[in-house]
Every structure is written in C-alpha cells, then in structure tokens.
C-alpha cells in the first residue's frame, strides 16, 4: 500500500531546491553561451568532468570549496577546447559538442576510478540568523548550503548582466547578428570564447554539486543526462534567466517526487518512475515547440568567419 503521508512537504521543497541546483547552474551557464550565438552540446561532458575533478580535489585537500573551484577551472578548460575548435578552427558546433561529451565521459571515468566508494568532505549547511529560525520556512528555504544561494544569485546576476550592462548588450548583439557586431568593431570570437568559458565553469560547479553535495559520492556516469536536461531547460526557458530558474526547479520537483514515490512504494513500476524526468522533459519540449520556439538568438549555432 502506498503511504503518501511519509512524504513531508517541508522536506520535499527543501530537497527540490537541492536537486534543482546542479541543473540550474549548468543551464544558466549554457544560456549565456547560447545568448552569444554558440550551441555547446558538451554540457554533459563538462558537468561530469566537474563532478569528478571536484570530488577528487575535495577528497585530497579535505576542502569542498577547493573542490568546487577546481571543478569550475577544469570544466572551463574543457570548454575552452570546444571554444578554440569551434571559434578558431571553425569546426561544426554540434559535432564538437558531442565530441566534448564523449571525451568528458571517458576522461571522468579514467580520473574517477580510484575514488569510487570514497567519502568526501561536503558543504556545511549555512546557519542564517533570524530567517533560519522561522517556523516552517526556516527549514524549507533557509537551511541550505552556500551553493544553493550562490546559484540563485548567479541567475540574478546573469539576468542583470544581460539586461542592464553594456557588456551584456554586446554579448546579445553578437548572438543575434555576428556580422553586424563585427562590423561595429566588436570582437565576436573573443566575446564568444568568454561566454563559452563561463558556461563551462558553471557546468563544472553543477557537476561538483552533484558529487559533493547532492549524492554525495563519485560513481561513473553519475550525471545521467543532467547536462542534456540543462540544455532542454534553456529551450524551455526561451533563453530567459528567470524562466531557467522555473524550469530547473520544476525539473528538480519531478526528480524528487519520483524518488519519494519510489520510496513510498507507489503502485507504479519503478522503471516508469525513473524514466519520468526524461519523459517529462520530452513532453515539455513538445509543448514549448508546439507553441513555437521564441527568443532563440538569431545566430545560434552558426559559424562565424570574418571574410572580407
């Protein structure tokens, strides 16, 4: 018999925030990349590299913060390889992104082998005065680790950057029409490389959050499509920061709910529940595309070569 009363709403919402954070980090980074007109399909590969590098460094140094920093650097470096290939040697973005994912999966399996089954230091829960002591909301919203809030701040920062700053305007111009931006004297390739590296760092943080906080352990292939779901969320969000947040939290909700239903012994086959996040992603993509995809940067995925 199913026992729904075992699912506590407070814990449910708290765990949705935790489970949404890795995807949110990866998705907000990828959104900036796509805003600059580049489609990087290597998010999955960068995330899993971040996961393994973050875990390895955290185990070796005993500090989760070092782990996160290392993860961001490693994935940014991987993203830079993608950037040089697609922006300098003008390779096909789809193929290169796929290559990045395949290489990242191999690299992570190689690095991670000795760390399987180990325990790592994790991030402490923040002790927020006043807010954390609120009766229900305190445990629900204000008893998380720093990365949860950092990811929310990052969404806010990206939104403000794109909307209010001159640099954000240039980035959007490059993504909408790289030829016009080039004619105005902006360095298209440099802007795109910066966006790609930022996206890589975000994906790395997301991956490290999985292996250091969410799970927290290293297992081969542990991202299990989270990077691809982050890509789907960017489409779902119509390339808007606020909607990326909504998308990631919705997705986190589905994941947590299906895990809770599995634990509560719902009369639904386990395979169906485990597949539900992916099915939901497909359904959401269909609904969005049926209404017509709006807001995609006009130069998305197109190679730029300044010919004269």
């Amino acid at each position: 018999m199913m026992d729904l009363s075992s699912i506590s709403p407070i814990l449910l919402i708290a765990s949705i925030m935790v489970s949404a954070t890795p995807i949110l980090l990866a998705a907000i980074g990828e959104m900036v990349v796509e805003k600059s007109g580049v489609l990087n399909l290597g998010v999955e590969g960068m995330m899993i590299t971040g996961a393994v590098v973050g875990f390895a460094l955290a185990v070796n140094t005993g500090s989760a913060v070092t782990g996160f920093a290392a993860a961001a650097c490693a994935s940014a470096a991987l993203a830079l390889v993608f950037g040089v290939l697609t922006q300098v040697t003008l390779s096909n973005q789809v193929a290169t992104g796929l290559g990045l994912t395949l290489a990242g999966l191999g690299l992570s399996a190689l690095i991670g082998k000795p760390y399987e089954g180990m325990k790592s230091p994790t991030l402490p829960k923040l002790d927020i005065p006043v807010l954390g002591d609120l009766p229900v909301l305190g445990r629900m919203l204000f008893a998380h680790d720093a990365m949860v809030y950092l990811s929310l701040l990052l969404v806010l920062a990206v939104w403000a950057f794109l909307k209010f700053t001159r640099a954000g305007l240039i980035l959007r111009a490059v993504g909408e029409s790289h030829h016009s931006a080039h004619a105005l004297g902006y360095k298209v390739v440099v802007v795109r490389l910066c966006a790609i590296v930022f996206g890589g760092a975000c994906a790395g943080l997301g991956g490290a959050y999985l292996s250091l906080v969410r799970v927290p352990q290293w297992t081969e292939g542990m991202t299990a499509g989270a990077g691809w779901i982050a890509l789907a969320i960017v489409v779902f969000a119509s390339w808007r920061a606020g909607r990326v947040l909504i998308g990631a939290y919705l997705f986190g909700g589905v994941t947590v709910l299906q895990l809770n239903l599995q634990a509560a012994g719902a009369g639904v086959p386990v395979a169906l529940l485990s597949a539900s996040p992916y099915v939901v992603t497909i359904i959401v993509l269909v609904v969005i595309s049926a209404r017509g995809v709006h807001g995609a940067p006009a130069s998305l995925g197109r190679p730029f070569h300044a010919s004269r």
Partner: protein
Amino acid sequence: MIRLEKRPQPSQAWTLATPVLAVGATMIAGGILFAVLGADPLVAIRTIFWDPLFNPQFAGFTRPQLLVKAAPLILIAIGLSIGFRAGVWNIGAEGQYIMGAVCGAAAGLALYPSESVLVFPLMILAGALGGWAWAMIPAVLKVRFGTNEILVSLMLVYVAENVLASVSSGLLRNPEGRGFPGSRNFRNWEAAHNAELIPGTGMHWGVVAAFIAVILAYVLMARHIQGFNIRLTGEAPRAARFAGVSPARIVLVCLGTAGLLAGLAGLFEVTGPAGQISIDFNSGYGFTAIIVAFLGRLHPVGILLAGLLMALTYIGGELAQLMLGLPGASIQLFQGMLLFFLLAMDVFTNYRLRLGRAEVA
C-alpha cells in the same frame, strides 16, 4: 599573421588526409596519456593497434572479434551518416539499438521453444521495427511540432535504458534462471541464435547486414535521387525547398533509416555476441558510432574503414587492460580525442591558411 581563407570547394585531398592525420595525432596524444598512466607508450600503441591483428599468440582469438565489434558500429554509423548529411541530428542511436534488441528478443521469446526456421527472420523484422518505431518518436515530434530532435532522441536513450532494466528483470526474464535478471540465452536455442556463419572469422548475420548496408547506402547517396535530395537538404535547405524536396519527408526517412539499422544492430548483438537481454548488454555502440560516422567522413566506404578501426581500438583496449593494466576508460577517452583531432583538422578541408597581413582593399 596567419589567417584563414575559405575555399570555394572543400578540398578533396584534405577530406581524405584528415582522418589519417587525426589517427596519427591521437596516437601521439594517446601515447602521452599512456605514459602518464605509467605504461610504455610504444608498447601500449602496439598492443592496441598491432597485437590484436598480428600477434602470433592471441591474434587467432582477437582477429574474429574485429568483425563482431565492427558490425554494429558500421550498421549504426551508416544510418546516422545519412541523417547527418541532411542536418538531421539523431544522437539517440543507443536507445534505438536497445529497443531493437528488446523488441526482436521479445518477438522471439514469445515463440519459445519453436524450432521453426521462421523464428530468426521474424526476430530480425521485429528488431528493425522496434528501432524504427523508437526513432519515429523524435521524427514525428520534429515534423509535427518542430521539436528539437537532438534533445528528444537523447532523452529517449535514458527511457530505453529504463525499459531495458525493467524487461530484463521482469517481462523477458528467464523463467528458468532462478530469479536472476536476464533473458533466456539465445546461444542455447538454435532457431534464434545468430551463430557464426564461417567458423573462426567472426562472420555472423550482423556482419552480412553491415556490408549490405554499406553497399545500399553508397548507391543511395551517390546514384539515387533521394540521396541527392538528402545531401541538398543538408547543404542548401532553401534550395532544396525550392526544388520541391519536402523537409518533413527527409526527416522521417533519415531518422527512420537510422532507427531501423540501429534496431537491426541491437537484434544481431543480443542474439549473437551478447547472447541474452541483460541490463548491460549494450556497450555504448550507439554513441561510439557517432565518432565512426564522422571519422568515415559520412561516406559509406569511409565508415566501413572507420568502423573496423574503432573496433580495433575496442579489442586493443581490452588487450591493453589485460596485458598492461591500462584502465578501460582510457580507451573511451582515446576515442573521444580522435573525434576532437578530426574536427580540428577539418579546418584545412574548408579553409586555406594564408600567411601575411590582409591587404586593405
């Protein structure tokens, strides 16, 4: 100052040279990687690329494996390459491969223990249909709603993996298997066994199918109007539209073919080399086939060669794991690097390097 100048036409010579150069560069980078892992790089490269074919001690065992491993890679990559030519990015071949195997095996197991000669052909048909149907999901969604086929086909891989996990411990579980997950072993059931056709060669029906697919794909792409339409859609979508090519039809044909071939590959794998439906019978061939398709320049003959080379890295990788203690994942990374080098070197195919400053017009 070096700058790039776009060639009016992609260079023929570079198109053929880049895969060879990429393999060379990957061997060098791989050698460095193996040295870091504590193995002698020259020995490692020899173990991977030479010993499986020519070592007198175990080449007799490893050589047949070449065809066994290459067949599914070639089958899947041929299907993918047709789509890639048209700009249809099916990257969920792994899912179609799994579903082909599951459907084909299910059709066969429903008839157990019949010894009719029709069992195996029926399974082949069901396998092809299973893969085709799984690929039709992203195809129809793309045609009907314009949904991105990259993301949908990929999401369906994870769904297929869950289906596989479910049926191998439920619906298709061997009733005489003492409750262990996994289906009946097709090797012990002659009517459904994809046996070796010529002993000691590794030649099975999947290899035959792969060769037929290579020939048919060559005829299609080089001689048939549909192949021309597919290439036109990829290179100049607007021109194709004006020429009366229906983009929807191209999507359906490309994804359908890819799914069909991946489904076949799955069926032949599960009834032959793998032997049974189990949670991890799939070895990621659907993803490696993407590398094979690109390394083969999306050309059927190229894919044939690339498939054999990639099969060699699998076998050689296992050998290196056994003999030198190199981790299995290093081969996965090696294959990924190969794709990177290939894509990077393609710049020479499409662009000319020019030295000196650009003249001001």
